[in-house]
């Protein structure tokens, strides 16, 4: 990492939702750090809590327990004034470019809304800034007067990015920003995000279920399963040497876009589905589907620990299992 300044320090974060038949633990005792300037990729299957975690960081949800430190200061309980100042520094890009833009506002108004809320300059200055942003994300000045329905998915996502950048944030949560887009458009958006990161020195939390894209864009990747972070490592390390049995299955499930490699791919097919996050049993959450699970795994939940410099894993048996192989 370029500089080891910790931007986010997330400590034992919990978020649960009350549902009819119990408690849904969306984020369960998650602890990790995000370093300034990096892209932290977060992967996992639907319902694993990755979007909830992203939303907790930008204060769209309030945690039930644990703490979030941004530049050393807790942001869980902030008064209104401080909360507003915080939202200027952290922004979000949403998954659904069709649902996340107000259909009754023009593209220009959408981009300026955040600037107005934070009183960033005169009307003229905001207009200038808006045109600058349009140019920065690859849209034309005449797009400012159009409405979202006139735009394609890729153009809407560019608008979402311009809106997030309008208030000069330091940190952006990208919640599946490309999964609703076509393959050829996905590459355009990813290249744009990468370029903006270098130009503006941004830090990203990049949430996705597309493992190959996360590998490409991230400096470190965290794998989530049923609300817990099970493994954190640098992408090459994680993809070539996954240690957690769930990560191994997840990575082996991705089909390779090459018929010969695909034929030779050895697959660890997990039986069944991800269990419901409502009233989860104690112990390791993956124990029910893990072929290596022992009684200890079913009783005691493993915590995330460092096993080498850049590799953290939550598994009781990681050492002995990897002696096997």
């Amino acid at each position, binding site marked *: 990492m370029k500089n080891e300044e910790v931007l986010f320090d997330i400590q034992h974060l919990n978020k649960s939702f009350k549902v009819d038949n119990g408690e849904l633990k969306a984020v369960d005792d998650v602890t990790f750090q995000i370093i300034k300037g990096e892209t932290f990729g977060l992967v996992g*299957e639907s319902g694993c809590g990755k979007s909830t975690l992203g939303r907790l960081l930008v204060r769209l949800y309030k945690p039930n327990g644990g703490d979030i430190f941004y530049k050393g200061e807790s942001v869980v309980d902030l008064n209104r004034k401080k909360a507003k100042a915080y939202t200027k520094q952290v922004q979000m890009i949403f998954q659904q470019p069709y649902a996340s833009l107000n259909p009754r506002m023009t593209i220009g108004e959408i981009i300026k809304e955040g600037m107005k809320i934070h009183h960033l300059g005169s009307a003229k200055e905001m207009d200038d800034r808006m045109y600058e942003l349009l140019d920065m994300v690859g849209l034309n000045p005449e797009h400012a007067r159009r409405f979202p329905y006139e735009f394609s998915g890729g153009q809407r996502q560019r608008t979402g990015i311009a809106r997030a950048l309008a208030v000069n944030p330091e940190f952006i949560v990208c919640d599946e920003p490309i999964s609703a887009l076509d393959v050829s458009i996905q590459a355009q958006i990813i290249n744009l995000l990468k370029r903006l990161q270098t130009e503006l020195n941004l830090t990203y939390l990049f949430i996705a279920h597309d493992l*190959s894209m996360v590998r490409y864009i991230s400096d470190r990747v965290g794998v989530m399963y049923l609300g817990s972070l099970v493994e954190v490592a640098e992408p090459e390390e994680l993809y070539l040497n996954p240690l957690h049995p769930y990560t191994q299955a997840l990575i082996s499930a991705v*089909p390779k876009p090459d018929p010969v490699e695909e034929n030779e791919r050895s697959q660890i097919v*997990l039986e069944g589905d991800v269990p419901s996050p409502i009233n989860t049993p104690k112990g390791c959450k993956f124990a029910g589907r893990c072929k290596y699970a022992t009684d200890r795994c079913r009783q005691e939940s493993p915590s995330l620990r460092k096993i080498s410099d850049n590799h953290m894993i939550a598994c009781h048996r990681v050492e002995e299992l990897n002696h096997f192989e």
Partner: protein
Amino acid sequence: MLEIKDLRVSFHTYSGEVQAVRGVNLKLEDEDTLAIVGESGCGKSVTAQTIMRLHNMENTEIKSGEILLDGTDLLKISEKEMQNIRGNKIGMIFQEPMTALNPTMTVGNQIAEVLRRHKRGKKLSRKEARERAVELLQMVKLPNPEQRVDQFPHEFSGGQLQRVVIAMAMACSPQVLIADEPTTALDVTVQAQILNLMKEMQREKKVSIIIITHDLGVVASIAKKVAVMYGGIVVEMGTVEDIFYRSEHPYTWGLLDSISRLSKQKGEPLKSIEGTPPDLVKPPVGCPFADRCEYAMKVCKDHLPPETELSESHRCRCWMLDPDCPVKLGRRKV
């Protein structure tokens, strides 16, 4: 045995006539797996839906073409005859298993409905239909089929529902199975299970599969033949090896490049195809990809390239393959 000849389909909308499919030729042999790939709006789903005649005919116009199933033109037969084709000869799997099923009926009753409606010959009793439904759920490897058969769709996960949908599509042992983005709404580990199930169905039931997808990983894992569609036409068609290793069309190159992220170095930008697909209300007269193609020549904008036969299995529509074309590129390995 299933052959599509010069299919042209248009939709009449407020903004004008959308020429969604503009002359598609495809052939599906017995026990073959054909993947149709392309971006949204390229006409891949419309082509598949036309085979099943699922369009609202009020605003849909089939301008020309034939869809021959064992010699019968599906576009010429009556709606009643078509109902005997659906389910019995051609089954379909949809993209969203959550919306493809009726939320107010148990899955067993929904499978039984298919059996009772489509089974030719003797009519099944309710009891027989239920037993058969349990067998089908067993065939798609749903755990505890005896109990699950009486449950409602909301009690199933996405992957389980897709198994139910596959069981329904396979209920009357069709010859052809059309799968429209069957795994797009599912997670990767579940996707792997469903693709394996489809491969198994093909081996055991000898069904031919048309799979529509935009995921080249899925294509590599299941398909034998591939048709790449763009702007309502098939721009390149061949075996899976032809498309992945010997492709000749710049759009196919673009698709392959935009997913080759694994081999990329960190700092290197991804190859992307600039621009957006053409508007099919006013489809371009020339090659539909010409506007986004880095090799486009004047002829590309003015005339639709003819189909060039590169080998027995491999066909491609690109002016660069014309013998008079001065530029010779050929596919470089990604």
